[in-house]
């Protein structure tokens, strides 16, 4: 079915509630519906198995307009249907759709906290991102939010006693995080355990929320590229790539073929780095430190390659709007090929280890099994979904950039347990290495960048990229100015949390860190506002002050 046919099907499905149809781009359909009709419209798409709910974008149209918007994006291959719900600024209410589409819970909690769109029927009322004592009726992502509004809640909780955690005779609440050896980043899980068996699970994010989406609304397009690169320290390239792809789509700029090939190449190396890192973390959670040490040693190879190409190890900064910054010459090409040869032998070895080591299999085989229908229901993405046999990979469903010319093949497993997730990730690396070799062998000639305008034409677009953890979703809106009006980022980890919370119940506490690691969580991706407070004077630092401090620090 072509994209056009898919969109027509969607339009027919949504016809009963359709108030207005907009076609912002070729592959997108916007259907304006009344808030009351949302539940029926979403279930119509869901029951017809038209794609999956990818993200819910909240938007504040401004104080004068007096309106909020919520966009429910459904993706089906390259086709995207958005249900656009227009709401008044005061008393915005939408019905929950989490009862039919469970991953919507996290999206709905996000728009509820950030935009003050009340979600009727939401089972969980705790905060997901904001502090528990955040003032009511203060919504940080609304346009009229000021930092002074947040100051009122800066109260110290240092002297409070923690809750004792004893629920019943043998039942305890075991807190994992925000500071815990199993977590390399701050998040909080509370698992109720009866002896060793987990009976309930709850989670909370936002400990490292930096408000990047909000910050983007006061920066130029170019500055934002570097800002979004810092959403995540592991998949920084995919974030920058998704953002620049979106901006290029808005500006209708064609990126040169060579630049696209280099983008895919760096993305491939980044995937190797990310998955090897993940393998090490998982092995460590399982208590198999030898595998952890070895996989991280081999990860150094790919880190060195990235450093050689881009000059950086973490935030590679390979992208510029309209192309890439770094050239792959003969010397780099040779180094990459040598590195890939070494990595391929090591990856094959690890593949053998994770499928044959009896003690490791004790902790992975048959643990946290997610069946294909469950994976569909939870809305899983990326390798976690592919391990359950769900063919969900943006690089294949909706090829972008150089993936049209240098395609990758789909890797799926059917078992859906932790072992399958290890196997999928490692096999995926071999596929990536193969694609990288074909890029290096047939590198197109030409310039590295195309000229970009300073002001980006008005419009809105969606950019989707397959990050190492799954589909990364960017929604970008411009009003024709030098700065974006709204950039919404939905990271893959947010969609995969449901699987941990559902699967931990009934399992042993010892399996929980493995389950958390099994979906390759990235907290910093989920948490995107920082307030820097000077501990001596306890004053809030402005961005300008921070920048000056940075320059001063490095010039010393």
């Amino acid at each position, binding site marked *: 079915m072509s994209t056009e046919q898919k969109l027509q099907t969607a339009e027919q499905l949504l016809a009963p509630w359709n108030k207005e149809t907009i076609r912002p781009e070729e592959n997108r359909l916007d259907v304006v519906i009344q808030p009351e009709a949302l539940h029926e419209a979403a279930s119509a798409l869901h029951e017809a198995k038209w794609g999956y709910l990818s993200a819910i974008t909240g938007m504040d149209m401004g104080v004068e307009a007096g309106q909020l918007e919520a966009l429910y994006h459904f993706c089906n291959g390259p086709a995207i249907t958005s249900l656009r719900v227009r709401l008044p600024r005061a008393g915005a209410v939408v019905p929950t759709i989490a009862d039919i589409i469970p991953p919507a819970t996290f999206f709905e909690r996000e728009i509820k906290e950030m935009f003050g769109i009340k979600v009727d029927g939401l089972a969980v009322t705790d905060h997901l991102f904001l502090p528990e004592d955040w003032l009511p009726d203060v919504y940080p992502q609304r346009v009229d939010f000021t930092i002074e509004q947040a100051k009122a809640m800066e109260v110290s909780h240092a002297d409070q006693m923690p809750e004792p955690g004893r629920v019943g005779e043998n039942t305890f609440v075991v807190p994992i995080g925000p500071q815990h050896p199993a977590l390399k980043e701050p998040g909080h899980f509370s698992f109720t355990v009866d002896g060793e068996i987990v009976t309930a699970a709850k989670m909370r994010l936002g400990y490292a929320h930096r408000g990047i989406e909000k910050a983007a609304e006061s920066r130029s397009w170019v500055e934002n590229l570097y800002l979004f690169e810092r959403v995540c320290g592991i998949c920084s390239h995919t974030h920058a790539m998704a953002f620049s792809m979106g901006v290029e789509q808005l500006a209708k700029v064609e990126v040169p073929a060579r630049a696209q090939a280099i983008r895919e190449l760096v993305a491939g190396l980044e995937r190797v780095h990310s998955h090897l890192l993940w393998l090490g973390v998982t092995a460590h959670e399982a208590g198999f430190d030898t595998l952890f040490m070895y996989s991280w040693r081999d990860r150094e190879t790919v880190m060195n390659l990235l450093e050689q190409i881009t000059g950086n190890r973490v935030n590679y900064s390979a992208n510029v709007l309209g192309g890439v910054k770094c050239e792959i010459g003969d010397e780099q090409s040779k180094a990459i090929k040598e590195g890939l040869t070494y990595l391929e032998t090591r990856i094959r070895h690890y593949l053998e280890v994770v499928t044959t*080591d009896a003690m490791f299999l004790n902790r992975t085989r048959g643990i946290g099994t997610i069946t294909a229908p469950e994976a569909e229901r939870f809305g899983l993405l990326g390798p976690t979904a592919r391990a359950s046999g769900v063919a969900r990979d943006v690089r294949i469903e909706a090829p972008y950039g150089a993936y049209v010319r240098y395609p990758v093949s789909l890797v799926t497993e059917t078992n859906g347990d932790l072992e399958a997730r290890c196997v999928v990730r490692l096999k995926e690396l071999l596929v990536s290495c193969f694609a990288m070799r074909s890029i290096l062998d047939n590198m197109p000639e030409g310039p590295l960048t195309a000229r970009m305008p300073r002001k980006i034409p008005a419009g809105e677009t969606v950019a989707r990229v397959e990050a190492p953890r799954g589909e990364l979703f960017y929604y970008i809106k411009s009003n024709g100015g030098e700065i974006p009006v709204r950039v919404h980022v939905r990271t893959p980890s947010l969609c995969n949390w449901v699987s941990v919370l559902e699967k931990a119940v009934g399992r042993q506490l010892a399996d929980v860190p493995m389950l958390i690691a099994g979906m390759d969580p990235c907290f910093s991706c989920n948490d995107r506002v920082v307030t820097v407070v000077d501990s001596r004077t306890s004053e809030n630092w402005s961005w300008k002050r921070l920048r000056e401090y940075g320059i001063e620090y490095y010039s010393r």
Partner: protein
Amino acid sequence: MNTLTSIVTLLIFPAGITLILAGMFYEWIDRNLVARFQNRVGPRWFQPFADAVKLLAKEQIKPAIINPYLFFGLPIFALAGALTAALYVPLFGLAPPHSLTGDLVITIYLLSLPTMCIGLAGWNTTSRFSLIGATRTLTQLFAYEAPFLLALLGPALVAGSWQISEINGYAQNHWLILTQPIGFIVAVIGLMGKLELPPFDAPEAETEIVAGALTEYSGRGLMMFHLAKSAELVIGLTLVSSFYLGGLNGIGLFLIKTIILLFFMSILQSLLTRLRIDQTVGLWWRFGAILVLAQILVTILWKGFMP
């Protein structure tokens, strides 16, 4: 004079300070070997000593809701238990300072004392990590203790004595690893379980329950538990190598045999993935106990029919 000798044996040589220093040395070998197997460099020779000095110098933080007598007393009991156990074993290949009929049972009891103290220490605090860790420590104790005891019983049966020095003497003429291989394997793995080394480190699995039963301990208390563990390592190695590896006679043989044993334990530590607590219990009762019982049955029959 006699009192003075007793004090010297208990506090300076061979138990006491010498044993603690030996414990640090063996800990360093173990850490270094594991590090080498994992493609790391490992700590320098004085690292365990530096850790001890640093921790002993640090403040010990007392949690609000605990029994203070237990909290401060348990580490001392643990260390005392381990040091006392050293008096009955041929430490450094020398004859044990004290020897009496049935001292094998006393030694095994004393060696369990640190583990019991750690279990109680975890139970004494209200930290949930400690409570779960304590439960796991004690569960594991019940899993490995009986097979470990049975594995040491095998040599005792063939030697016809419950006295460690006599078994040691018997073993000098008989390499029991050849006649009782199953007993040897169970004893080595039992020792690893006793010391909570990987893969039996579920009671202190940091990715689940932080530091297990010792989560609330800091400074001196933590260090004393740590030293008790190091002493236990040396005593355990001495026991197993004197029973199974042709006895211990002289310091050279002691060093060679115990370090070879430690080498194999380090390989196992770096090769194996941590077992969940249910898997540990299952392993011991389903395989360990039954295998070692079969071994003892064979030994008894052999002794009965071939005088």
